[in-house]
């Protein structure tokens, strides 16, 4: 991103690299928001198209925030959102690999289902912040940048999400 800054993101190779660097995060973020892959893909596409159309006016260092701003603005039109359906990675699904007795495994499976349900029940604000951290491994300051809020606000949402998840899961028992 820092090289090629002369020609900016209008340069196809620069744009292509920028796209590869950010497409997954943006798409996942939108997916956590909408709970719908198609909508997430659409808005992702739209945001990148807008970026390219305005590539001459957007300096490379502003490209990322431009991208998320466009995505957030476009999202305003997508009001209806669905339940977020997530999958567990096939590998490493077991927390305690040394305690693999059947009863424990069953309990673990139950917990996973409960967790999925609880996540789907979170507010959009809590869910996006929480999943960006858990799935995409975003740091709090990165999440703050994406959502356009302060780091403190991100921490508050993460905390709120954890409290809510625990409450939901324990209530399901």
């Amino acid at each position, binding site marked *: 991103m820092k090289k090629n800054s002369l020609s900016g993101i209008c340069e196809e190779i620069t744009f292509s690299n920028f796209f590869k660097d950010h497409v997954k995060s943006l*798409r996942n973020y939108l997916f956590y928001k909408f709970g719908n892959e198609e909508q997430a893909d659409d808005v*992702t*596409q739209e945001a*990148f198209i807008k970026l390219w159309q305005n590539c001459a006016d957007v300096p490379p260092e502003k490209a990322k925030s431009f991208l998320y701003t466009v995505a957030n603005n476009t999202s305003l039109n997508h009001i209806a959102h669905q339940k977020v359906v997530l999958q567990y*990675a096939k590998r490493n699904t077991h927390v305690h690999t040394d305690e693999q007795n059947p009863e424990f495994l069953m309990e673990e499976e139950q917990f996973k289902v409960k967790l999925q349900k609880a996540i789907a029940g979170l507010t959009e604000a809590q869910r996006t912040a929480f999943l960006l951290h858990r799935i995409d491994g975003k740091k709090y300051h990165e999440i703050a940048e994406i959502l356009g809020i302060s780091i403190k606000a991100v921490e508050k949402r993460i*905390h*709120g999400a*954890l*409290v809510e998840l*625990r409450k939901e899961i324990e209530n399901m028992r």
Partner: protein
Amino acid sequence: MKEEKENNKLAKWLDGRMTDEELREFEALPGFETYNKIKAFSGALTAPDVDIDTLYQNVTRHKNRKSSVRKLNPWFAKIAATLLLTLGLTYFFYTTHTTNTVAETGARTEFLLPDHSSIVLNAGSEAEYRTWNWDNNRIVELNGEAYFKVAKGKKFDVVTPLGTVTVVGTQFNVKARGNRFDVTCFEGKVMVNSNGEEIMLTPGQSVSFEDGKNIIVPLEEAKQPGWITYEVAFHSEKLTNVIAEMERQYGLTISLPEDVYSPFSGALPMNDLDTALDNITSIYHLKAKRTGDRIVLTSE
């Protein structure tokens, strides 16, 4: 305050930023086990795979199409609109633009029409015509007197407030002054239309209307109107008309005492004021006194 600290705590813990002491404290709390499970299992969650290549292709495809529509269109429309406007305005001005030629009093003007027909405007006259599509629409609006040498072609109209003269390849004189309308044909044929009356003139013939009434005028023997050579012939012309003609030709003001005068017939030079005045004064028994541009005629 405590709530605030608590807020930071869970987020801090998830981020691995708790101090050992804080961690020990937290681990002792009843909710820790669930929190720990949440942390572990949520870390194993995945979002549906992204088809990066397809998305990228869609972006580039849309980018090309949309930009061509959004950026080219206003540019193209602007040029098209400007062109149309320019064309429209040009057409408007071109079709409605009239050329106006004026001969001031005491002067005459000779000019050519687009088809090289020549017009000599007598003093104090005005001609107006459109250059656009001239060859198919040969119309000259005349106020005053003019001698036309019309080039061969289609219909040629001279429109005056007193009547219309239609000609085909000819030379003729048209005079429309006040209530007097004279047309003399010198070559070819001339159709005169005045007050719904149509008269065909052949070379040498003239037609005159005074207050809309036809006046008999003798045959013209000259090859061109007298005024071209500064010798104007009058036939049964009101003296006031003669005086008005002299005023135009010489660029003077001539005052005539109110009286009843017999019509004037004869020729007057228009480049020799003294001779012309002598003629008038001797016929009508008048005296002329000149001061600057003003001539006062008095009864003898």
